[in-house]
């Protein structure tokens, strides 16, 4: 070491009503260092970086940057001091083009033509090719991240903050990103890398600070410590992988044949000739980076968007033209990704939300009148069986934390004993304990003879619970393959279609098969 630290954080504390998001957090970063900030959802990582980036003010504690006191009042002050940030949920504007998006994130705006040239130049030197004139809405997740990174690099930052950068990338795209990050750190800038992906951190980072419940619980050199040990530190307990048992495949319960669909929303993805089948007792995992047709596929399966009757077969009956209610009565249930607003109505109570999907199968409606006692009872059963932490069924959905609400919406479908269950991103934004419980519940459901389709971005999750794996890429679905014996390399190729392999030239996305 011997170098003066670039950034020191000393005793930062931040309280929000009801929670201490950060409690006396201290660590420091040397120039050129890639420093990992690890922790589960809700451990306080986001709050900490918000304070460093000037989006939140600490209640107590101090920061220094390059030896001088550092108290950014707003993001522009942080940027002026040489701190740049790439957000987890991209802070991009879909209807604006690449150059306009980049211009919005910089303080000094060169004339448009010079900016376009600068984007190309920086892109080339860091291996991040981009066409400045393209609309961001048409870009893939990996390309969008490039926009964010170039936006930061144009300001020659001393400190680059990356918030969960690989959560939306294919393994190949992640490799390209790591290559870029190493180049940036070799240039002398420090990188604060936030993630809960342990393998990423072990390959990339020099040091790691681990947060749990707002406190620093450990500091370590990730290369020297096992992933299991880091996971233990993060969670504070040992996690057991879900138990799965061998089972003989049953009859085909859900068959999708040549399903094509035009997108409903602007910047949506069209589905192209999707085909797969799922048997009783099996879990089909559909991987792929979000925005490649996942939402559209779920809507086609749930009945929110109708297709030709023969495109979706449930026990050999064409149901493609059936509305959602009829599909539910048959036994095809769905749990969409967006918890608030799609899977659950935010301002309605858990009981009312139970009625919304369980009305038919649980017999909660008699002659046009609702059976509220029965509904409350059903909601209570979901809460009890799936360990939903809430005062009771009268609480509104919005009041639940992400993990608890997710357990509730998945439990609500599982308790209706579906024949086929389709879930989209079942553990997105859910802490490790709840995620393990949800995965186990899906496996138990399959064991009981149901067919499960699990759409997820989390490859590890899919490998853990699926029997078959396929990937969605720009609306195309790869041929499902047995999970057993599938290598990470093969999965990466399935996820990326063809384009991730050639370092993603601009426009190469269109070449994907």
């Amino acid at each position: 070491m011997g170098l003066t630290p670039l950034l020191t954080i000393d005793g930062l504390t931040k309280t929000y009503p009801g929670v201490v998001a950060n409690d006396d957090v201290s660590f420091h970063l040397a120039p050129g260092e890639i420093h990992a900030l690890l922790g589960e959802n809700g451990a306080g990582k986001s709050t900490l970086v918000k304070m460093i980036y000037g989006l939140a003010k600490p209640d107590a504690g101090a920061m220094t940057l390059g030896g001088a006191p550092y108290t950014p009042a707003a993001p522009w002050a942080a940027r002026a001091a040489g701190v740049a940030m790439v957000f987890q949920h991209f802070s991009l504007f879909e209807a604006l083009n690449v150059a306009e998006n980049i211009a919005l994130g910089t303080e000094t705006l060169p004339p448009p033509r010079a900016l376009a040239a600068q984007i190309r130049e920086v892109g080339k030197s860091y291996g991040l090719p981009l066409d400045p004139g393209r609309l961001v809405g048409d870009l893939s997740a990996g390309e969008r991240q490039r926009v964010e990174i170039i936006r930061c690099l144009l300001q020659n930052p001393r400190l680059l903050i990356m918030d969960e950068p690989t959560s939306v990338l294919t393994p190949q795209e992640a490799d390209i990103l790591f290559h870029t990050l190493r180049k940036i750190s070799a240039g002398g800038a420090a990188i604060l890398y936030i993630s809960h992906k342990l393998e990423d951190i072990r390959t990339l980072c020099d040091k790691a600070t681990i947060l749990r419940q707002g406190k620093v619980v450990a500091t370590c050199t990730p290369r020297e410590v096992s992933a299991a040990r880091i996971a233990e530190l993060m969670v504070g307990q040992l996690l057991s992988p879900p138990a799965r048992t061998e089972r003989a495949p049953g009859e085909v319960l859900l068959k999708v044949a040549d399903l094509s669909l035009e997108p409903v929303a602007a910047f949506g993805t069209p589905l192209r000739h999707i085909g797969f089948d799922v048997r009783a007792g099996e879990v089909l995992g559909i991987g792929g980076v979000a925005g490649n047709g996942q939402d559209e596929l779920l809507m086609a399966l749930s009945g929110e968007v109708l297709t030709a009757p023969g495109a979706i077969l449930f026990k050999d009956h064409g149901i493609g033209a059936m509305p959602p209610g009829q599909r539910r009565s048959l036994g095809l249930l769905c749990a969409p990704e967006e918890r608030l607003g799609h899977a659950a109505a935010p301002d309605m109570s858990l009981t009312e939300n139970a009625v919304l999907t369980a009305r038919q199968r649980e017999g909660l409606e008699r002659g046009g009148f609702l059976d509220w006692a029965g509904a409350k009872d059903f909601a209570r059963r979901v809460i009890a069986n799936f360990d939903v932490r809430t005062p009771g069924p009268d609480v509104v959905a919005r009041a639940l934390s992400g993990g608890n609400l997710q357990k509730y919406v998945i439990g609500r479908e599982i308790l209706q004993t579906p024949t086929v269950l389709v879930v989209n991103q079942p553990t997105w934004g859910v802490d490790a304990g709840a995620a393990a419980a949800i995965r186990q519940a899906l496996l138990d459901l399959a064991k009981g003879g149901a067919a499960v389709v699990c759409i997820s971005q989390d490859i590890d999750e899919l490998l853990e619970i699926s029997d078959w794996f396929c990937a969605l890429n720009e609306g195309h679905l790869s041929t499902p393959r047995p999970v057993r014996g599938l290598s990470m390399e093969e999965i990466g190729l399935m996820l990326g279609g063809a384009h991730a392999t050639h370092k993603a030239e601009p426009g190469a996305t269109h070449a994907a098969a």
Partner: protein
Amino acid sequence: MIDPVTLIVALIGASTPILLAAIGELVVEKSGVLNLGVEGMMIIGAICGFMTAVNIGFSWSGFVAGAAGGAILSVVFAFLTQFLLSNQVATGLALTLFGLGLAALLGEAYSGISPPLTPDLFPQTLQEGSAISSIIFGHDPVIYLSLGLVAAVWYVLQHTRAGLILRAVGENHDAAHALGYRVVRIRCLAIIFGGACAGLGGAYLSLVRVPSWTEGMTAGAGWIALAIVVFASWRPWRALLGAYLFGGIAALQLRLQASDITVPVVLLDMSPYIVTIVVLVLMSSNRVRATLNAPAALGKVFHASG
């Protein structure tokens, strides 16, 4: 028969109040705010402008007062929606009703009075040269101002950093906030600009178009301005086209009524509104394309968290 030159001159005059209100509302909607109170702001602009011009004796003072009146009413909307986070649709409707009522109250003593004349910008000799010169030069200053405003709004939105930030705020207010832009302040400024434009449009109505004060004299012009913004798919030049199209039909139907053609008057009265509805239906038939240029955060409440 109908003289095309006078028709065009009349068309431009008839369109100007709607055009002014529409261009203001376009800026408001581009910033992600839906202000349905255009009608209310227009009529407040009409009465404020009328009262001031009558009392001071200069028509230009009326235009300034009209714009100020519309802007002040829009501040109410900005405060309710941006600081108290009220529902924009409900607040906008309330603003229209409030504006209509308040204008009727203020204008009670002013019916039947003539406002001071608004002179044309160019001398009579220049206007009388030919058909072309009377179309180009035969207008009052506000008409040229409205055209300049369209050009300015287009230039600012497309080619300046301020316009880019405004569009960004309307596209994704959370991302704009994360980048450090002051969403609420930018939206308030846009709302006030929209209010001033609507108020100016209203003042033009009571000082030049009619010119006198009658209760409820905007007669739905504000709603048509709102429809034109959608019709224009949030593009300034198309808003100009839309407003002139509408003004053209309104001017034409007046002349058709005066000529010998025997078409029921009610049908002709309806025609501008029917055309508006038909055009809106045609525009929105292609949903994906219509939404492409629409501000994605339009009408959504922004609440800065953390």
